[in-house]
């Protein structure tokens, strides 16, 4: 069953709502016992990197998650800060990330932007995906999602980039390495595009 990791951050209810409208069963995990039997994971997150890592580290779920994701290779989808947590580290904080996808989280640098942009990057923006299957299956051209962030994931391996978005520069907004996936935007608040992505995830 799809299991949403509730370590105290992120809009858990929004995911529950989307899946209940799709008639897909989900479960919320508050402790490692709730993770038993999970076949697919969602790692939400909002706020700062360190706070998110700190909360996850002290949730008591980390060992079980590593077991599920790295050994059993069940799919996991990180959302927003949940995606950033998959990196080795972040410019926003001092704590280590999970390091499940090789990369670092960087702040948008106004000096490297072609046009001066406001931060945070807030609102609807287009996503260019590298594949039309998996998470981005059955989406029309010109797919749009809602973003709300000032930091982004920079992959060290080009092969882990699944999608990009332009905001002063082309940044990676979706990543994938085998069973481990992440999106910077909020599918749970992105109307039919987001619903389709979450449906696709349930079918992976």
């Amino acid at each position: 069953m799809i299991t949403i990791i509730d370590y105290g951050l992120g809009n858990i209810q929004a995911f529950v709502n989307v899946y209940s409208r799709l008639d897909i069963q989900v479960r919320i995990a508050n402790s490692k016992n709730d993770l038993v039997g999970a076949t697919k994971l969602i790692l939400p997150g909002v706020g700062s990197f360190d706070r998110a890592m700190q909360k996850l580290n002290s949730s008591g779920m980390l060992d079980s998650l590593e077991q599920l994701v790295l050994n059993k290779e069940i799919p996991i989808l990180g959302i927003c800060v949940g995606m950033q947590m998959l990196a080795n580290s972040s410019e926003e904080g001092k704590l280590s990330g999970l390091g499940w996808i090789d990369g670092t989280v960087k702040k948008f640098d106004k000096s490297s932007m072609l046009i001066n942009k406001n931060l945070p990057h807030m609102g609807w923006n287009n996503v260019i995906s590298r594949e039309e299957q998996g998470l981005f299956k059955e989406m029309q051209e010109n797919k749009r999602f809602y973003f709300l962030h000032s930091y982004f994931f920079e992959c060290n391996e080009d092969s882990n980039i699944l999608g990009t978005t332009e905001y002063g520069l082309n940044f990676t907004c979706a990543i994938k390495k085998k069973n481990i996936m992440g999106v910077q935007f909020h599918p749970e608040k992105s109307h039919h595009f987001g619903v389709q992505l979450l449906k696709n995830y349930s079918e992976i």
Partner: protein
Amino acid sequence: MLQPRFTPCLLIRNKGLVKTLNFKPFKYIGDPINAVKIFNEKEADELIVLDIDATSKAKEPDFAVIKKLAAECRMPLCYGGGIKTVEQAKRIIKLGVEKIAISSVFLSNPDIVTEISNEIGSQSVVVVLDVKKKLFNKYEVYLDNGKKSTGQSPIDLAQKAEKFGAGEVVVNSIDNDGAMAGYDLSLALKVRKAINIPITLLGGVGDLKHIEELIKLCGVVGAAAGSFFVFKGSLRAVLINYPAYSEKEKVIKAAFNIS
């Protein structure tokens, strides 16, 4: 391309939706949840909900109402009204709201912006400024639904909000509220030039043309409106409405001269 946001702004009073004219209650609109459902169907870019009673009556945020709104809302939601503490802000975010809006507490204690953003992230902290036009093209921020003057300029306060860690400033024109005759563009441009965080303008939209004018002048900003999204026709019959994506696209293309 990042798109300008077309954002309905709903005002709550006694658990019902109202629309104001120059900040005075004007018309009962209906049930907030029903409005949210319609904006879901129309795929609105985001939604601002402000409880205009909470602060003036020194009430706590109505967490039961917020919970219901957040559960129903399929688009990003910004909630304001009565938020005074970090704990309240955290609790609202936990209910599934993306952004919290504060106003009067920012004036009395700007540090609260920093404290809240440390907890929930600055991207989720919005400062709302209610602005009245004064003589000689000057502007002043008002509190308490436009009743209490602060003596401070919206430009200074917007810069202060940015400095203390706000992620967005909403500028609400008291003079243009409900008039449906267009935004105060001079105010919009002044604030846009003064800060580097996203801004949203509110007050005055009566036609998509007004939104086009705003984004032509200020670029990618939030274009919020109340009356425009809840009334139809010159008699202002209550009819919740929102432009289709193709209509929004037309406005954006016209504003940015994209063929």
